[in-house]
């Protein structure tokens, strides 16, 4: 059964319970941060931060403000670019809906990071593990695998969902802004919820489940344009035109260079004959 996560930004109060719960369950170390003008911190996802609450201040059109609470996290695409480009075959799409990196296979080339169309590349590299993590690994108390010099991201709490628990973030959420469940059911819920929001005046309310990546396991309910939340309007599978690009290259450059080249030296050969 394919699971998913429904992020209802209309409910989120930005308390960051999920952000910390993710760190707590997955025992991820805290990063050194500083205040730079926004209450958003850490400034970007990283190997130590797999889920981040984002805060976007926009005008409400009538002199006031709208404060949009969003999230940066793995979208668990149905057509995952990261998995497509992974040359080591470390990133797999699991039958439970998660896109998972096998840390022991990953060799840290960061190809997946550049292929991901969301949040400037969700998979992030980690140089080393913290003492706390190594301590837990030694005691055999670390969930999943941890390998230094590999790329990390949300793994949809495999250890929890494969043992009948909801993900740490969904469990922590006070206002059901994060719901974990069967993806199809969540989609239905989302449509329903959006309809209600429309009625209560959230005219921009919409489900975010972009087709360009085949739909996402992490479904958003937004109350404003995707851009306002830092989400791409129409993300595409990064490898969509890979073969076309190959052929364009081979034909244009390949042919365009081979032909004149050939002509030059063909002529040379002829001239050489005449010379004799």
């Amino acid at each position, binding site marked *: 059964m394919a699971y998913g996560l429904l992020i209802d930004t209309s*409910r989120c*109060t*930005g*308390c*960051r*319970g999920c*952000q*910390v*719960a993710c760190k*707590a*369950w997955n025992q991820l*170390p*805290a990063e*050194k*941060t500083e*205040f730079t*003008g*926004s*209450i958003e*911190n*850490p400034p970007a996802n990283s190997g130590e931060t797999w889920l981040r609450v984002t805060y976007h*201040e926009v*005008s409400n059109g009538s002199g*006031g*403000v*709208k*404060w949009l609470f969003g999230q940066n996290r793995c979208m668990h695409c149905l*057509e*995952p670019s990261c*998995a*497509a480009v992974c040359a080591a075959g470390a990133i*797999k*799409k*699991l*039958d439970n809906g998660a896109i998972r990196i096998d840390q022991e296979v990953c060799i840290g080339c960061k190809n997946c990071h550049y292929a991901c169309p969301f949040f400037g590349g969700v998979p992030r590299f980690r140089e080393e593990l913290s*003492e*706390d993590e190594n301590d*837990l690994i030694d005691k055999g*108390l670390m*969930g999943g695998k941890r390998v230094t010099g590999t790329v990390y991201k949300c793994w949809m709490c*495999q*250890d*929890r969902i*494969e*043992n009948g628990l909801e993900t740490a973030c969904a*469990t*922590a*959420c*006070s*206002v059901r802004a994060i719901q974990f469940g069967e993806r199809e059911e969540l989609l239905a819920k989302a449509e329903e919820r959006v309809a209600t929001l429309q009625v209560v005046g959230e005219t921009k309310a919409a489900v975010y489940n972009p087709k360009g990546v085949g739909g996402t396991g992490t479904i958003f309910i937004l109350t404003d344009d995707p851009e306002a939340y830092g989400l791409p309007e129409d993300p595409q599978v990064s*490898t*969509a*035109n*890979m*073969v*076309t690009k190959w*052929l364009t290259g081979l*034909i244009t450059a390949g042919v*365009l260079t081979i*032909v004149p080249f050939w002509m030059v030296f063909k002529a040379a050969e002829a001239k050489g004959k005449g010379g004799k």
Partner: protein
Amino acid sequence: MKLTRRSFLKVSGLSLATTALTEFGFNMTAVAAEAEKLRIADAQQVTSICPYCSVGCGQIVHVKDGELLNVEGDPDDPVNEGARCSKGASLFQLKGGKYALENRQQNVLYRAPGAADWEEKTWDWAITEIAKRVKDTRDKTWVATEKIKDLKTGEEKEYVVNRTDGLACFGGAALDTEECYLLTKLSRALGIVYLEHQARLCHSSTVAGLAAVLGRGAMTQQWTDVKNAKAILICGGNPAENHPVAFKHITKAVEENGATLICVDPRFTRSAAKAKIYAPIRPGADLVFFGALINYMINKKHYDENYVKWNTNALWKVDSGYSFDPKTGFFSGYNKDTKKYDQATWVYKKDADGKVEKAADLSDPECVFQKLKAHYTRYTSEMVEKLCGMSQAKFEEIAEILGTQKPSVLFYAMGLTQHTVGSIMIADYAILQLLLGNLGKPGSGINACRGEPNVQGSTDVALLTHILPGYLGAPVATNADLTAWTKAQGTFRKKFLINLLKAWYGNAATAENDFAYSYLPKRNAAKNTTHVGAITAMADGKIKGAICVGMNLMVGTSNTNLVRRALANLEWMVSINLFTEETACFWRDPDGAGAENIQTEVFFLPPAGPYEKEGTFVDSGRVLQWKYKAVEPPGDAKADLDILDMLAHELKSLYKGSKEVKDKPIQDLTWGYGEPPDPEKVLTEMNGYNLTTGKPVTGIGALMADGTTSSGCWIYSGIMAGDPAKGENVNRSKNRNADDPSGYGLYSGFGFSWPSNVRIIYNRASCDPSGNPIDPAKKLVWWDPEKPDAKTGKPGNWTGFDVPDVPAKDAAPGTPGGNVPFRLLGDGVGKLFMAKYAKPQPDPKPDEDPAITKARELELPVLTSGSLVDGPFPEHYEPVESPAENLLNGSQTNPAIVERGEYCPIATSIEEYPHVLSTYRMCEHWLTGVMTRNTPWLVEAMPENFVEINTELAKDKGIKNGDLVEIKTARGSIEVKAAVTERIKPLDINGKKVHIVGTFWHFGFEGLAKGSIANTLTLDYGDANTQIPEYKVCLCDVRKVK
């Protein structure tokens, strides 16, 4: 050329193939997920309660072989259903992880006079030394008797006061209830009157304000009952950030019950972001807003006429001597010299034989309702626009919703309480709810969002100078004996004081010696013994030694510079906290006098953390829940209960054999909680014993006035009366039955709520006078004429989904006890007019209890209820530092407040300090930040303090986002980074543009996340009734730091 064209054709042709190819590549067959091992699979699960705000979220602590593995929300706890905010989610790091292990204090520390660092010590050494100093200071500063001048006659009289003015004790809101109780008990036995804690600074005005109008000073409903509301007003609070899990229930109300969420706040908070309606308001102008709401409800006839007639004093006539003069802003009885009111005229009109006269209907000009209407006519929507900066349209929109969508609940916190008009502001809130009939019903009420995990409990057991456990008035010098005390408090409370004295002094408390009443320290009513009073006395060198239990005075007290002086003037100080915070380390304060110049001795004792010990927390909804011990405290750390127990035994042995009267309270103090002390024994002492059988009493009803029972905190009586036959624990705080037969979210089987497990207090008000539910669809409690009484067996009994909040189960409607919805007020009804009233003894009956006859002879009332010292009706006065002039009456500031003089300089010109400064909190940090600023995950999310400045003001001052700015007030200045935002906007106040800037007060110079102390800026002028400082508003200037 040709070639090229052809090649392009090829491309286009092939690109089709391409997409097909990629498609194929993408329906990549999903591989089977690996079976993962759950790292907590074979761990032991221990339930606990979150130690942050008072929502009381259940936690599950996972432990394996004594090692902490994980902490997460308890899905079975109806309050949070497993949810946690960022603070709650970070609990693991209080004990787990490298940082906590290295930085959490695990050793006893001592800082010698003038020393620049700590030295490690042993428990034995520390307890002996501390006890020595306590005894020494106490003996030196003992006050046996005191001369008090009678205000009326003017003659001086000497009274026995048995107290020390040289010792102060602070803190306790983060301790377990049992620990707080022992702290109260020990402190009182030592004669300490400077006994204060966080409640003074966060909700003391709530207790005063709500008690004056409703009888009890607590949140009236349950978090889980909020879902039944039709409208929710958040004003002076920010639950989304400071009580995040409470928002779960707000969201339920909005989504499942169609409630409208309204947020009124100076800035656009995370709560505002979720509200349907947001309205800005100038800090300190809330009384104008509430007054106008009251006026609006009366004019538009939105008030609930029946409710008002049945459950309030609306029909009671007011004494003709009462008056209010808008020109001066004074109520009748004001004395300009003493700046005090004589409340003689704030009473009801009585007929010839002393009975209160009642009007036939609400139109009677003499009745309270008409007086109320008259008083608030000045509070118009125009006035709201002028003084609050809220548009009339917005105001009327809000008013109409509150007037038509019932029931509604109000959420508030420090935004209302921390003002020089704090108590009347809360009273105003309560009066509004009385008018609208929004008390005692499901989905109605007033939610005082308490800030600390157990501040409700620490308040219940009275870690406050003016009360004794169970909200009994602490005696003042003039309450010379038990009878004098009873004259002021009434026979109803006398019974409970006797039980308290029996609990504390056992056999030494006898009917002959007034139950050892003389042992209680008596404070001087004219002296300010509250928090700020204590800080001042320390600064003056009057207080020699102080004990801070989990209270960070340096960061938490307003007007920090005075605190710096105060701590430096102490001879010795004891600090008990999880981390060495700013108070324990005040001597190395970068803005202080320098360690070498500070002679204060400091003892630091490491306590056990929240899930490292057993005991109860009382949440904001008055529910006591038991926390179990999950792991051992680290290093030398010990539970506060053990620390207090060691200290008590040491003191008792020091005073052993003394013949002095002053030492009797310590010698006779009952103290036997086992070795090691057992918190459940302490809880049982609070519950009370039947001293003849030695068994715990079954409830408040079983307490006797003759010394045959004891109870350390009468409102908790019945907590140890669980019935195992019914599947309950004997200790009902351990109950975890999450059934909710009513569907209202009462969860009566989960924990135990005082009094007597009533979940919605004043629920009698949900019925009509004859005891039938006003709204049968939402019936909560009712009078059942058939149901036989448990004791007498006679038919007729109160029953319902909730425990009926009535004096006696068999008090039939129509009888004196049957129609007192607000039974802790002498008046028995809610007070729209806060009259001074003393309920007389019942008319003589042939077969009456001789005690009553005696009481009548002594003219002892049954139950008294006072007014607030600054008026029987809440009236608006401006903050001490305000950019606006009071347009409502002739008195700019509250006439009943006390000047602070040189202790707290205030702004003299608006030109110098043109902007309004407010300080507040954020979700990621908690209060003085002792725990959160030492939690790496939270520090990561909120690494530094910042000041929120509106875009326009920032432009004028050339301040950019992230720039370092200086905020300056008459008290001092701090440097902090700027957050330039539109979430905080300038307001048009009576034609003048007023900018508001706001910063957070969580930061200090110790811990992982450091920052300058924001309270350096705030002032410590106190509320007229409770002396809660006016943290929430003052005047400031900001500039960019070059």
